[in-house]
């Protein structure tokens, strides 16, 4: 019963979020700030995670392909496929659920308990739209860019393994990366990323928006955001993979 009530509240909030902004100029100002906060500030962590993931994937594939009949280029091919299809969109989105999601939940939760949301409402402004919509639009646009960046860095991670170990040569790795490339795999990843971005921002916005009480509740809202959005990302990952790849 409580779950149904929460889903209902979430949907009502989303109806308020997805509406025409009161002032487009203010919306674009806030969008610019959110693009920076959600996107630019996350490039570092995405680069770090992607670089090491790409390197680890390359080593693991090399470890599992010890049959002399299989060409070494397969390591580059498998690394690319794993990074593009799964590691970049899903793993990076899970990291962003922790970094961006918890930050949004605490920001909006703190605004709720300090009366800033009430202040917006009394001024006749739709607070849900004013606060959450720019974050949602920013995440839907910038997260795919982060994931593309993550893909490149992940492949560079694999290339560095090829360069500094004797598992394969850099040329073999590059040939593998270029082998049988289907652009749809990138498109599939971008669709997943956009859906995950919607999950991260709306769950975080909802958890922050419904906070009541004090700082402990704000902390709990952040934790719930990370847990719920991670679970939903994993569920939607399966759903979208089934829908788009079979």
């Amino acid at each position: 019963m409580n779950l149904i009530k929460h889903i209902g509240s979430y949907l009502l909030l989303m109806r308020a979020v997805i509406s025409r902004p009161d002032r487009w100029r203010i919306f674009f100002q806030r969008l610019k700030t959110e693009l920076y906060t959600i996107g630019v500030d996350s490039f570092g962590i995405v680069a770090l995670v992607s670089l090491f993931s790409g390197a680890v994937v390359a080593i693991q594939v090399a470890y599992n392909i010890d049959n002399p009949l299989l060409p070494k280029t397969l390591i580059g091919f498998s690394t690319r496929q794993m990074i593009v299809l799964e590691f970049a969109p899903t793993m990076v989105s899970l990291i962003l659920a922790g970094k961006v999601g918890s930050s949004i939940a605490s920001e909006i939760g703190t605004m709720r308990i300090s009366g800033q949301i009430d202040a917006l409402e009394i001024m006749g402004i739709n607070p849900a739209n004013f606060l959450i919509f720019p974050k949602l639009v920013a995440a839907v646009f910038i997260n795919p860019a982060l994931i593309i960046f993550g893909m490149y860095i992940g492949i560079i991670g694999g290339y560095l393994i090829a360069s500094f170990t004797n598992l394969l040569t850099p040329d073999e790795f590059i040939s593998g990366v270029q082998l049988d490339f289907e652009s749809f795999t990138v498109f599939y990843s971008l669709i997943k990323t956009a859906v995950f971005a919607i999950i991260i921002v709306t769950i975080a916005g909802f958890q922050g928006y419904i906070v009541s009480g004090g700082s402990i509740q704000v902390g709990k809202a952040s934790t719930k955001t990370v847990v719920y959005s991670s679970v939903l990302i994993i569920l939607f990952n399966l759903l979208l993979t089934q829908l788009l790849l079979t």
Partner: protein
Amino acid sequence: MIEAKNISKFFGETQILEDISIRFEKGKNNLIIGQSGAGKTVLLKCLVGLLEVDAGHVDFDGRNFSSMGFKDRRAIRKELGMLFQGGALFDYYNVEENVMFPLNMFTHQHIEEKQQRVNEVLKRVNLENANKLFPGELSGGMTKRVAIARAIANNPKYLFCDEPNSGLDPKTANLIDDLIVEITEEYNMTTIVNTHDINSVLIMGDNISFINRGKLSWQGNKDTILIDDNDELNAFVFATELTKRLKK
């Protein structure tokens, strides 16, 4: 003028406000007083529409606010300013941006006009050199003054103040009270102040409504409050050691 007509409010099974009718006059400081938990804040939230009333209605100059939808309420909300207990300044904006916010949202003024208005109201609240400070850098009194400046920036017809001098030292509290009295007169606003501070009551109380256990228990002004024989009111007014001694 704002009128609360037969307002009742329940939280679950508990009745918080019971059949409250009050008329808040234009150009005057209308005070809602009562001890903590009496229902003052709930009443204020019902008046501004942050809480929906379960019975009765609120009229803003004859316009039934309680039965309006979001769009109609929005038109009235543009005409009101509110000073929150903690100030409720937007953390990501500096003082100037906070005060300019209602102008950005509701006017089509040129940036220079808005800047001029911001400087005017900041000067009015004696904060001339604080434009670029962020809320975290302000003292309690400064925060309240910025909140007042933001509330009056768009020339509101109605001003709501929730515990305007809570957490302030007596001298700063007096300054805030004086400021509210002055701007109410200057802008000819309907001002509603929610307080439990007797000093504020004696400075500002043109019209006073005493709420006790969710009911309107007494109405009067700063001249009659000290001489009335309402026991519940006297227990509230003469609760501090200072007021007890003064009474003796």
